[in-house]
């Protein structure tokens, strides 16, 4: 399931991915702490997520349940990146990641494992 989420919406999703089901009230409290949003702002963003189908609203108490996983969101962002920057060629993206100077030893090992597992 691929949904385009804006930064603000991802911020709400982050809370849910970390905490699991959470009431809107709690999300608002957490985000007030984190990014200084007012309650109404948080509710606006939650509503947006509900509309997009990223959050399921469970009453009573307006409990929010994530309907997309972090991986879903990542996949969408990656697809978009490949489409936008690499003309739809995923290998170019991989090449460019591998070509980066700042990959640590661990990261390189991890990448090798992924390639092996896919073969």
């Amino acid at each position, binding site marked *: 399931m691929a949904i385009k989420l*804006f930064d*603000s919406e991802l911020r709400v999703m982050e809370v849910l991915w970390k905490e699991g089901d959470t009431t809107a009230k709690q999300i608002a409290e957490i985000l007030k702490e984190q*990014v200084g*949003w*007012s309650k109404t702002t948080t509710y606006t963003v939650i509503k947006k997520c509900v509309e997009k189908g990223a959050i399921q609203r469970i009453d009573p108490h307006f409990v929010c349940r994530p309907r997309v996983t972090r991986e879903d969101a990542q996949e969408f962002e990656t697809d978009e990146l490949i489409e936008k920057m690499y003309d739809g060629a995923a290998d170019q993206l991989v090449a460019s990641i591998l070509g980066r100077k700042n990959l640590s030893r661990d990261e390189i090992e991890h990448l090798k494992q992924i390639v092996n597992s896919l073969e």
Partner: protein
Amino acid sequence: MSILSMTLSASILILVVVAVRAMFLLRLPKITFLVLWGIVVCRLLVPYSIPSRFSVYTLMDRVGSMFSEQIVTPISTAEGIHSLVIASETPAPSVSSALSVSPLTLVWLAGIFVCALFFIVTHVRCRREYRTALPVESDFVAAWQREHPTWRPVQVKRSDTISAPLTYGIIKPVVLLPKSMDYTDKRQLRYVLAHEYTHVMRFDTLAKSLLAAALCVHWFNPVVWVMYVLANRDIELACDEAIVRTFGETTRSAYARTLITMEEKKSGLTTLCNNFSRNAIEERIVSIMKTKKTTTFGIVLALVLVVGTAAVFATSGISRIAIGDYTAGITYVVEGENDNFQTTLNVPTEQDLLSEYGAYGISFDEKGKMCFNGEPVRYFWDGAELDDNASSVYYEYLNADGTVDVHTTRNVIDNGDGSENPFGELIGIERYSQEEYKQRDLSDLKKSSGPDTYVADVSGGSGQDESVAQRFSKYKGYGIEYREREGGSVGNVYYNGQMVRLFIDENKWGGIFTYRSVDGGEIIVHTIYDENGKLVGVEKE
């Protein structure tokens, strides 16, 4: 001042500013244009204007009077002289009364409503969107904020919904940076923050709101749209100029490049007015690259332009009510059998009166008495109430045997410079109410309210703007003396020490000046001219 006269005079001013801008944009400190636009916005939103003798409208009035045959300046009766500068200071409500709102006014108000709604809705929507912005996690930005304390707390946030930096909020300003910005490029960040902070310091958000307000009120005027676009650009240009001055001229190209980078990202959205924005960005780049040190000459030129433009175009003319094409001179008729005096100077004939008032129920019986819808008229008044309980009269008729009092109603013409001419087109003749009829004291009318006073000058004659005192200085050699009352503009006339009830100066060309002393008096004096039209004396009647 009506909305039309406001919009017209402001349009002239805008066109002047546009011309000045085209000529001197790169040569003057940009603040000059902001000040000029400020004057324009005041002109658009403030329904009062300052009368000035340097005003272009005064000039037009003068020039206009050279070509018109005769300018008649009515001067009130009871008050002696009534200088009509006041007329230009009293704004007329653009909506005269709730009952008589013309359809055009309704259209205008509806337009304001629609425009304002558009701005407010967009603003509220964006605001809601921007509130979901996230804090910027950048040490550089935090350091910048510490180094640049402002007396209003400024928040810097980032959002992925915008593509170029912006600032919003007047009381609690927020600088919003696009997510796509390169937060590692310190130089670029510094320029962007300096630019947005300059906007905050200068209350540019407030300025833009005022521009939008002016646009809403004058939505029907394309010239105001031009102003809106250019003034918004000039706010940016002035801001850019401040940055170049802060960072030094060597940074011009780097700053310009930063701008282009930002603009490139933005242009994806503005396909609709792409050409337009390209033109604007080009103007911005050129103006940045050509920012020069302000010279003394530049400052002087800027001051001269601002003061000059303001004095000449942003003021209203000092004009008096000019009744054009009024050639009958003084017209005052008293009919009655008793001892009152009769001034019969250029008395209009029945024919004249019929042609003027006939269409509205005025006729004359076989004895030549005026009738209104067949009833004999006791008192007829064609005039206008001016301010200060004064009135000016065009034609007055009195017949003690009449049974009905009537008066005319006329359109008021807005002269377009803040003054009004109460003697517009005749639109009807109405009866005074029974109460007013009973209250009217005929003896009072016969005695104290003599002829109305007019100054009628033949063009090329003495200037229109002379005061009463100046006027009377002409007759000094003939024993006439005018003593102004304290408080000015009214007074008494004396002839060899005697108070003059009525002074009449009728020259060869039919120009008439009559004056009535405020405190009564007992004699009537008129002037004598030789056949060449030269004043040779005065005599008591």
